[in-house]
């Protein structure tokens, strides 16, 4: 109940912010910030006051929604979804802060879309009726597309269109798989059901589950993204406004990973094991290809986008290793990548605001005029290539160790990417902050320092004290 109210309140806050902006300029951002903080607090209180440890799925609400198909509005949470929702709250607040000065036109509508996206994302993480899940999956997509298409950079329409079509087509495949599963349930039990827990209890012949799993896998692989369906990502990340990129890289990619865990692996355990070699190969290719492409980029944001492909490849590799250590690593990587890539995109946005360019050629020597910004960039670039002491290192280390025990050859090849990531990390940092000074930039302002240091602190915490996450099992 509380969660439904929170989602509804998000939409309402968005609407109020939109309305208020018309009458009092500058009120939308304050309202959004206030609303998000407040609701995040409510969520935190709700979770801490509950007397579960959420190791298993806790069903919170089940209400009949579309009786014709026996579709329910049913939501549930466990540790995995709580963690991802917490990440969502954090990044949503950062999104509001980062858009503070950047968004200049149609401000009210912007914050409405932002909050709607957040509501959709939370819905994705808590829905346990597959139809409802699909519903939220699409609802989070619409405002995100609008954010890219309206407030993005020069080539925004094309990027938004590509993003939407890729996601939509793959999710239609998932919809067919969902329907197929539901009607299989009808055949077996005489009851049409879209309810996740019903599905988990249903034994399914391998031949059939292979096909159904493929439908889900494609949808999540597009979102993750994995080679060869990754091409929407560099465009969408590059063209989106800063907050859009942050949300995309920080949370939307994680919905793909979440889907893989929650639906592909748990609903189709046998079929996933069978499919693991293919998935792992795709993952390794993504890791290497993303890293290779990253250091060939001249565009600051495009470089980070390709590095995301590489990092999410690690997550997929870990998930299909079926090893608890790799699984823990995947969780840590998801969080750490969410923080570090969000931070890098924030920095890209800050630089863009100062020099109105994303090209590394136009940058250089910023260290002299903006040492604070340089320090943060260095720190986050190091996080991205896995410097010990920061969160990403823990994640990648656990993944590689875990995968090595199961499929050593994949781990060996994937480890090569660690070298490559150091290369592109350095390309990024040296290209922008070292060398002869191309122009003077203003150093970070107080708001920007707050954003960066918050993210850096969390990464440090995760890197130095990973037990914070590792003590939970996350359903693994």
């Amino acid at each position, binding site marked *: 109940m509380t969660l439904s109210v929170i989602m509804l309140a998000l939409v309402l806050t968005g609407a109020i912010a939109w309305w208020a902006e018309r009458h009092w300029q500058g009120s939308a951002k304050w309202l959004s910030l206030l609303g998000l903080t407040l609701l995040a607090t409510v969520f935190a209180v709700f979770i801490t006051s509950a007397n579960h440890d959420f190791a298993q799925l806790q069903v919170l609400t089940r209400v009949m*929604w579309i009786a*014709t*198909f026996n579709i329910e509005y049913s939501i549930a949470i466990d540790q995995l979804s709580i963690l991802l929702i917490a990440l969502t709250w954090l990044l949503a607040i950062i999104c509001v802060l980062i858009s503070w000065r950047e968004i200049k036109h149609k401000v009210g509508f912007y914050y409405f879309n932002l909050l709607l996206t957040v509501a959709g994302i939370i819905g994705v993480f808590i829905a346990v009726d597959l139809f409802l899940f699909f519903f939220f999956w*699409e609802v989070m997509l619409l405002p995100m597309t*609008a954010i890219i298409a309206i407030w993005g950079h020069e080539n925004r329409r094309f990027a*938004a269109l590509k993003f*939407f*079509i890729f996601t*939509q*087509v793959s999710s239609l495949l998932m919809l067919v798989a969902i329907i197929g599963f539901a009607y299989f349930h009808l055949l077996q039990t005489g009851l049409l059901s879209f309810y996740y827990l019903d599905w988990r209890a249903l034994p399914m012949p391998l031949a059939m589950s292979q096909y159904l799993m493929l439908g889900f896998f494609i949808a999540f692989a597009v979102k993750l993204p994995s080679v060869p369906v990754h091409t929407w990502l560099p465009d969408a990340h590059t063209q989106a406004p800063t907050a859009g990129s942050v949300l995309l890289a920080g949370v939307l990619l994680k919905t793909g990973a979440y889907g893989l865990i929650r639906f592909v692996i748990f609903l189709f355990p046998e079929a996933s094991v069978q499919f693991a070699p293919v998935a792992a190969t795709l993952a390794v290719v993504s890791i290497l290809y993303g890293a290779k492409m990253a250091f060939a980029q001249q565009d600051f944001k495009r470089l980070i986008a390709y590095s995301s492909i590489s990092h999410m490849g690690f997550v997929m590799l870990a998930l299909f290793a079926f090893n608890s250590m790799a699984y823990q690593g995947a969780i840590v990587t998801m969080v750490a990548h969410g923080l570090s890539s969000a931070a890098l995109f924030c920095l890209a946005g800050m630089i863009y605001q100062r020099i109105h360019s994303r090209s590394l050629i136009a940058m250089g020597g910023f260290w002299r005029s903006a040492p604070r910004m340089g320090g943060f960039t260095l720190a986050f670039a190091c996080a991205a290539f896995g410097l010990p002491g920061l969160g990403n290192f823990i994640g990648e280390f656990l993944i590689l160790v875990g995968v090595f025990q199961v499929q050593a050859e994949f781990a060996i090849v994937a480890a090569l990417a660690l070298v490559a990531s150091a290369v592109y990390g350095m390309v990024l940092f040296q290209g922008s902050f070292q060398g002869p000074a191309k122009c003077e930039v203003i150093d970070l302002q107080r708001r920007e320092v707050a954003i960066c240091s918050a993210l850096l602190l969390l990464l440090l915490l995760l890197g130095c004290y990973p037990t914070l996450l590792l003590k939970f099992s996350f359903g693994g």
Partner: protein
Amino acid sequence: MSAITSQPDALFSLTMAQAILPQLIIAFGIVLGLLLVAWRRTQQIIVCFTALVLVLALIANISLYGTSTTQVTQLLLVDANSSFALSLVLISALVALRMSYRFLKAHIEVHDEYYLLLLLVVFAAGILVTSDHFASLFLGFELLSISLVGLVGYQRESQYSVESGFKYLILSAAASSFMLLGMAFIYSVSGDMSFNANLSNAIYHQQGLGLFFQLGLLLLLSGIVFKLSLAPFHFWTPDVYQGAPTPVTLLMATVSKLAMFVVLVKCFVAQRYLLLENVQLFLISFAIISMLLGNVMALRQQNLKRLLAYSSVAHMGYLLIILIVTSEQSLAFSWQSILFYLAAYTLANLSIFMVIALLQQYSSDAPYQEDILLTDLQGLFWRAPSYGLLMILALLSLAGIPLTMGFIGKFYILSHATIAHAWWLIAILIFASAIALAYYLPIIFKILTAKANDPQHMPLKKQHLIEQALVYALVVISLFFGILPEFVNQFIHS
């Protein structure tokens, strides 16, 4: 009631009259309307009168819900499905009426005949959705064609009116003669014109007769398919959609499509034509060609009405999938799905054409703008928020994105296809939807983005209160039924 029980074999009883009360009201209204025109020619009176007739018919029709299926003579069969379809027809006609009034008011002449033709279209649709006999099918079909021809060419001063009127006249005359020939062939084999005639299985398999029968079926099908503008019988659609006055296009897109599809399903289900492999083959090829061609052709259109014409081709293709995969056991479910999809499609089309009609009236300084191009939609969401929102919702519904009825409609289609394991059709449907997104989304982006120093960027002229209310009502209805589709299902069930 006692009269009926004592005379069960009466040719025409009171229950029957009650069952076709909506049609009777409309027919009576047409006659009265003729007299009214002879008595006094004023726009106001005839509009109010037409609206009254439609509302009365709607009330009569709604009161029919829950009554059992009634066979009215051999010609008509009134059941829950036809009642629901008729309600949709009447609601669309009411919206069309309001838009027509605006549209005709912009002209100096008095146009009373227009409203009679409009009532005739509704009457024809009323016959079609209830027809249970080839004779009534043909009657309805012809009545629909003839009155629509009159409406399509109504706007004499428009540059397109003659072209589109003639195109529609000649092609639909050809289609109906094909259909008549087809009926004759079928009759020559089966010897019965009723839909629910008991055809012996022999007909399907007998060598010589079978061929004749199948030829007849193909001709019959081509007539209906022409009206549904399924590819490859769609060539008239873009030109006529563009050339006709927008309220008439609205009628064609909703009333005519809806009624024809319902009668197609009635006919084919009752006669079990779907058992024939050749018919299946034809339907599948129509569906596939329509889905792909309609969407591909829509991609490059700049004129909004032409674009919608091609998208309607694709949509009828999607809908045909349900008919193709339906089986005896899933008949009730098929009906429900088809009616739901038609309702979603009608609502979306009503919304879009209404916005087009309003833009034609209000967007420029000229009293009336003939063509609405995609560029005219630039920044609509900021110039006129309610129009923009309605348009976006309708486009999302056509594209089948959640929060709208169109998504549930697509869900129905995918469910049917999945149950029937029609994987190829699903693959093509998904591929076609992807193409469709490539033209729906840019329109939505256009609506959402305004150019700052554009002369177009000015608020619309002042609009009438009723239109505003209609726009808001449609926005609320689309959202409400999109999120809670169960309410529509309740109507269909009863």
